[in-house]
């Protein structure tokens, strides 16, 4: 198993092979992205401080990292105090955080900058985000707009874009026709229809939560260019100027190598790139009717109002 | 020979069940020209303005038709009576005559055949009696309107509310002004466009059935077919909001349009509404060619009257305190 991972790592590190024109094994055309894929992994987006300067785990380090992470993440463990138990929220059965580091043994999903961390923010962006965070702390239960996009059932990091694994439902179904590649994101049943016919982007006054994608093939890599974001998606501070480039390459029967570059000069002092392997799964994408079952929102707000009443007395 | 084939080709291509009439109905009557798809041509702008009333006036009881002299005298008498430009009653009377004659479209003459009523059946020229239930309904509605005349828009007439005028009906009756109607024909359709209130009735000729009984319309649902040179229009599915002389939602209206000369369409309608009228009744009104065009009557968009009437009532109530 470790050997396989090393081979895959070699394939990724010396990435040109993935971007060339060779068909993958089993005669399957490598322009075929269809199927259901998952990007679940415990590899963090940014390199942990413990691994500063270290691009790759050794197999032993990876195993240790997995053990420690899984122990920490285990939602079924019983803490010494009940409140900590409650804050674990769901039992382990419901989580899909992953138990393994990503194929290739990188210590971070970010591959550029070389330190594996998001570049510094511009001063203006820093200021804006600090103000937002301060406001959020003081008004966290004022109304639905003060809760996260996840709690509001509007948008999850799984959809992004860019698409990153989250707590659960990290499944993607890709369907291709002659002129489109379509990505169905299980959470929250978001559909990205990526036209391949070279049409221009939408006019700049039309903004969308998932932006407006346009795709084309470079060899066997699907390159997707996405603009027209609203600026409300809160992806690591990105604003409406986000210009996202994603690359999908079906490198072997079981994996699509997914790479994205974030370019948002009003927020990040330089562009940054991450790679997230997407592994084939036999599962089907199920319906995630988030809003329809959103008891949490009502309960959070009602609870806050009740607490206020109590404290007022 | 060619005309017959042309008609057949039209029938196949446009699937319209037209029975082209190649033979005149009587040797001496005028035959209307045909539209390209073979319908008798009713197209143009027409007006039904006339001084002849719907019902026979009491002074002509038993007299269905006037002589030429009687007609001339009567027309003169009527024109004098209705002339809103005359100044002979004092200020309040003047104001109540509202618009000057310039605005009115009464017509200057009686119908050409000098009948004393537009109604031709029953022979007494009057609307038949209402059923007891209908009479009750009409009386109650009238009383309610009187008691609530300025409570809100519902206390005003449908004409004042810019919802419906008798000019469009159907049936179509002359009104105080804007009596123009434009008829257009296309393969499979006759369209009747009434100037007031820009109502267009699309009448399909393809034999389709009426809409479901649960779907009701203010102007009903019209279906047409040709009988010789007469367009017969059958209208049902009225919602009953327009009570035409007491009619209700069971109204079954039949209209007949026959172009009898280059300048005249003979328009006849029969009211069959057994829950309202004790028997059916029929009226005939000539549609006379006029030069048009049909203008836009943006009634609701200019309906200052309704606001002023209600505001005036509210102001009067306040000052009464």
């Amino acid at each position: 198993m470790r050997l396989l991972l090393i081979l895959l790592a070699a394939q990724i590190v010396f990435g040109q092979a993935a971007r060339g024109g060779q068909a993958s094994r089993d005669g399957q055309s490598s322009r075929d992205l269809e199927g259901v894929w998952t990007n679940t992994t415990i590899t963090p987006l940014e390199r942990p401080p413990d691994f500063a300067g270290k691009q790759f785990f050794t197999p032993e380090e990876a195993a240790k990292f997995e053990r420690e992470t899984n122990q920490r993440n285990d939602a079924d463990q019983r803490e010494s105090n009940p409140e900590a138990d409650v804050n674990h929220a769901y039992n382990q059965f419901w989580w899909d955080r992953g138990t393994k580091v990503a194929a290739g043994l990188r210590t971070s999903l970010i591959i550029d900058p070389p330190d594996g961390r998001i570049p510094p923010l511009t001063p203006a962006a820093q200021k804006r985000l600090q103000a937002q965070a301060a406001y959020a702390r003081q008004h966290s239960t004022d109304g639905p707009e003060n809760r996260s996009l996840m709690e509001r059932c509007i948008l999850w990091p799984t959809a992004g874009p860019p698409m990153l694994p989250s707590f659960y439902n990290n499944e993607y179904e890709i369907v291709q026709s002659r002129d489109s590649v379509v990505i169905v994101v299980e959470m929250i049943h978001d559909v990205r229809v990526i036209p391949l016919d070279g049409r221009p982007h939408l006019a700049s006054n039309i903004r969308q939560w998932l932006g407006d994608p346009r795709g084309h093939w470079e060899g066997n890599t699907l390159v997707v260019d996405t603009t027209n974001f609203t600026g409300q998606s809160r992806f690591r501070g990105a604003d409406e100027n986000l210009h996202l480039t994603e690359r999908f390459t079906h490198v072997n029967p079981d994996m699509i190598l997914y790479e994205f570059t974030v370019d948002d000069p009003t927020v990040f002092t330089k562009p940054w790139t991450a790679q997230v392997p997407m592994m084939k799964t036999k599962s089907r994408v199920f319906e995630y009717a988030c809003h329809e079952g959103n008891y949490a929102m009502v309960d959070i707000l009602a609870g806050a109002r009740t607490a206020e009443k109590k404290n007022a007395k | 020979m060619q005309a017959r084939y042309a008609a057949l080709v039209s029938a196949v291509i446009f699937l319209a069940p037209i029975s082209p009439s190649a033979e005149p109905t009587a040797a001496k009557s005028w035959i209307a020209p045909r539209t390209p798809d073979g319908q008798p041509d009713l197209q143009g702008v027409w007006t039904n303005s006339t001084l002849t009333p719907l019902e026979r006036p009491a002074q002509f009881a038993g007299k269905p038709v006037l002589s030429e002299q009687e007609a001339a005298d009567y027309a003169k008498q009527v024109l004098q009576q209705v002339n809103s430009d005359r100044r002979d009653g004092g200020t309040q009377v003047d104001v109540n005559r509202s618009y000057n004659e310039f605005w009115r479209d009464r017509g200057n003459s009686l119908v050409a055949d000098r009948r004393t009523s537009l109604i031709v059946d029953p022979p007494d020229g009057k609307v038949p009696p209402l059923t007891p239930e209908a009479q009750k309904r009409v009386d109650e509605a009238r009383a309610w309107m009187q008691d609530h005349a300025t409570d809100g828009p519902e206390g005003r007439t449908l004409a004042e509310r810019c919802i419906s005028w008798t000019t469009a009906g159907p049936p179509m009756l002359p009104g105080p002004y804007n009596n123009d109607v434009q008829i257009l024909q296309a393969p499979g359709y006759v369209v009747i466009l009434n100037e007031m209130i820009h109502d267009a009735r699309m009448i399909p000729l393809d034999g389709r059935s009426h809409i479901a009984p649960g779907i009701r319309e203010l102007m009903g649902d019209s279906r047409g077919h040709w009988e010789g040179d007469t367009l017969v229009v059958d209208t049902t599915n009225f919602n009953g909001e327009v009570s035409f002389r007491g009619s209700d939602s069971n109204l079954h209206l039949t209209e007949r349009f026959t172009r009898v000369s280059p300048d005249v369409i003979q328009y006849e309608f029969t009211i069959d509404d057994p829950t309202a009228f004790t028997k059916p009744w029929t009226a005939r009104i000539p549609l006379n060619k006029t030069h048009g065009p049909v203008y836009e009557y943006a009634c609701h968009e200019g309906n200052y009257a309704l606001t002023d009437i209600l505001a005036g009532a509210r102001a009067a109530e306040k000052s009464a305190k």
Partner: protein
Amino acid sequence: MSWRKQIQLLLLGAAAVLAPANAQNQAYKPARTADGKPDLNGIWQAMNPANWDLQGQSAQAGQIVALGATGAEPPGIGVVEGGEIPYLPAAAQKKKENYANRLKLDPEVKCYLPGVPRATYMPFPFQIVQSGKYILISYEYDGAVRTIYMDNPGPAPVDSWMGWSAGHWEGNTLVVDVTGFNDQTWFDRAGNFHSDMLHVVERYTPVAPNVLNYEATIEDPQVFSRPWKISMPLYKHLEKNAQLLEFKCVEFVEELMYGNLRKQPSK
């Protein structure tokens, strides 16, 4: 050839070419995908007011005075074959109650997933994406989406709003068998509803360039005395660069659903 013969041939030709549109749908030969199936790819939309009331209705005033004519209800001829939806007596009563309280009860008001077949005739376009393996329908409304499994996916593993769709071809018709519904959706804004025993069979048939004939047979023994059917054409969007846009309406209903729980309540 005599001119008379020419006209006779013209009539025959005209009759053949202009056969009524509702003749058996198989007469039209649609374009095919690479794997030989009728090509349903494209952005489609129903052009009727079925979403207001499947049975059709006269026009009527809306429920929100301030919206004036923009909130008024348009008229409709109705799309139910035979006109009436055959409710069982108790269910007919529930439908009446639904209608009377539709502003509160219609799941569409709260931006809930529309279910099937309602998603088809919402006043929004949808896109069919057809590969060899999958047929996907992505609806602009609320980002609703269905994957039609063409590989005998077995029974629905769990109930859902949009159901579990299994598809196969019969001639030129895509037949989709949909089960596994919960009981939460309505068929329209008039309160027509179902239980979780709902079973829908859809048929999508190309009948002319850029036109599909859509039929849905609806069966629910807890609510209806027999199966019943709706049908309507679906028209392709032909404008250049047509695409679905986002209608993520959850955000638009937060004030409605949670406004009374705000710290400074707006209600």
